[in-house]
């Protein structure tokens, strides 16, 4: 029985396997490069198998780039940012979906508009703000800036999600004597689990890969730099260490990949909820 299904799937399986292989070929190439020497990478770049598997690129990336310290910073900043963003955008999304107030529509449009303004160069106002708060060169300052720049998109997605949940649920909870907050925590949040997973993965990815904000907000305390900032030490005019770079990049990918695998089920369901409405 299983065999028959498999046989029937064979053409599709072959096509998918070939496409997927081509798809991740650059990635496989990266993995194999990370075990090569730089000279081998250049002269025999197209061969997938290295002459011998060398782990020294990983050792170098980890030590030279001070990765263990950076890794720790990245984890602290990213996890805190993700938590803040999830809580805040869920609350906002709920409020936008349920509470009527004057000027709501313009506010939503304004929110959406901010998505499209290029922001790569708006660091100076953020920097000045963090300085006024006395949080320059601290991890909380960095977390605040990362979390503050993000939640618009997710708030809108949460709003869409909550609008799709029938109002009767809230009303039933309120009849039972639950407050607004209690309803949110006990009724709404469990329903939004998939949406939360979506936010976690995407926000995790963005914060993890953020470069300029962490660099500028920790200018005078390089011990607080994050992994991505450290990674850029391998990119530049004087650098010929490509294999070190690939090793460093692979190290930095692992946490995001693990998170994706863990949350994949919710992730897909999460978007289901949000787009249905």
């Amino acid at each position, binding site marked *: 029985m299983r065999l028959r299904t498999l046989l029937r799937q064979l053409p599709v399986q072959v096509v998918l396997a070939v496409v997927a292989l081509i798809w991740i070929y650059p990635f496989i190439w990266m993995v194999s490069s990370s075990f090569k020497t*730089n*000279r081998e990478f*250049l*002269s025999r770049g197209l061969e997938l198998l290295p002459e011998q598997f060398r782990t020294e690129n990983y050792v170098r990336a980890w030590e030279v780039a001070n990765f263990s310290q950076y890794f720790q910073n990245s984890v602290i900043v990213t996890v805190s940012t993700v938590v803040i963003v999830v809580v805040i955008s869920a609350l906002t999304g709920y409020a936008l979906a349920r509470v009527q107030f004057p000027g709501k529509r313009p506010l939503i449009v304004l929110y959406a508009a901010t998505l499209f303004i290029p922001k790569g*160069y708006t*660091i*100076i106002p953020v*920097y*000045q703000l963090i*300085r006024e708060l006395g949080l*320059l060169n601290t991890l909380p300052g960095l977390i605040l800036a990362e979390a503050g720049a993000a939640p618009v998109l997710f708030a809108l997605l949460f709003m869409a999600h909550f609008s799709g949940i029938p109002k009767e649920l809230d009303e039933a909870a309120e009849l039972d004597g639950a407050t607004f907050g209690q309803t949110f925590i006990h009724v709404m949040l469990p329903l939004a689990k998939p949406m939360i997973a979506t936010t976690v993965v995407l926000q995790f990815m963005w914060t993890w890969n953020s*470069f*300029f904000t962490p*660099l*500028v907000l920790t*200018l*005078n305390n*390089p011990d607080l730099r994050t992994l991505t900032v450290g990674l*850029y*030490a391998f*990119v*530049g*005019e*004087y*650098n*010929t260490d*490509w294999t070190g770079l690939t090793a460093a990049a692979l190290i930095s990918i692992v946490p995001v990949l693990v998170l994706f695998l863990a949350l994949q089920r919710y992730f897909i369901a999460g978007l289901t909820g949000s787009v249905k409405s």
Partner: protein
Amino acid sequence: MPRPRLALLLLAALAFGAHALAQTTQLTMWVRTPETVDLLGTSIERFHEANPDVRVRIVTFAADAYPGALQAAISGGDLPDMFQVHNSVPVPRLVSLGLIQSLEPHFSEGFRDRFDPATWWEGSTTVGGEIYAWPDRSFRRASLFLYYNRDVMRAAGLDPDAPPVTWDAFVDQANTVTEAGNGRVYGLHLGFTSGWFNERVILQLATTAADAHGVPAEHLPGRMVNWTTGELFDPSGIQEAIGFFAELMSSDAVHPDFLNTGRSQATAQWAAGQAAFLFDGSWRLQELLRTEPDLDFGIAMLPSRDGGPVLWGVEGGSQNAFAVATRSPNAAAAARLFEWLSDDYYPLLIEGAVDLTPIPELNARDELYTSDAFRELVRLTELGTVVLPSPVMENADQLETVVRLAGKTASRPFGESMQGFLADGAFDVSGFLASYGGQQNAFLAEALAEASADGAGVDESDWVFPGWEPTVNHY
């Protein structure tokens, strides 16, 4: 009961720590030039041993991220004690904004006299005659050279010790290598991807082509003028230089990826035998010596049209000097560090084959040299760099003009345009050069007018040097 004892211990540690802190001066130093970070670190370690009361912490930056970091730090009043200046935030601006302080009161008697006099250059290291920035290397620097791979030349049947001197010879040899290489090896490689680098390549070749009276300066790259008349630079030289590339491209004698390969990768591909010749900066040498110890290569001047020396106009001062922020209370300690580095770190620059020092007596000390290639590079650098005339050195008020000039930039950057032209030729070079040069002249006129309106005693005459000879140092 271990608790109270632990607390006591902590208290003692805290008290001791506070005590130690009170005695130590902490200095932060921003460095954006990766080639000198290790040398500075080595020397600063030794400085710590000799000066236990001072602790210096180096913070490094990726070069691309530095201007943004500097802008943010200035806007937040958060500049570190010492930082490397960058031409996006020129020294005179820093001074007029009150952001950096004069080091003059802190240096010991006679300190400045040991340097090549052109090291102290108005608007770069000094303002109003006072030292504001300490140079991390000589101003005679960073011209482009021809690196040749002897193994590849041998394989193509060329004399490995006779690299081409003229453009014609270069094209011939490049074609020979390409033909012998059978689609695997090319004559020339270079990473022609960044605007500033492309501009240097073309201009440095162009100086040998037509009107040598337009040797361009790196501080005022837009000023492509004939310095003896103040008139527009003759663009025919630039066109000839482009023609030189076009000829190489037409016979596939230049690596097919030269328009889309970064400089460090181009170097590595050249070293791996994909090309016989490489055009790259003097700064590439130390990296080659470090990463390619077995490579048999030589260094020579870029080819010139007719075989004469390839000149490169420089200004004095320093492009990578270190300044001290006004907000730092530790200028005295910083000056002490700079004096230490002048004695202890400058020799490392030569030993590490990184660059020339601003102290001629050190550059002449043969025992410091550890590689013949670097000895040759220094010889060529001293031969090829000419100190340009400077309006600011003639008339200090011209600083106002220069500062205003920096705020005006041509709408089409030069280097990117050259790359675009070589890529698909769909581009009118002479039209571009005429409008580019015209814009530059208009900008100068505007800047002069603005400066005199603000009370500076300036006019055009300071920008013209009738008796100037391009082969002679002006100062």
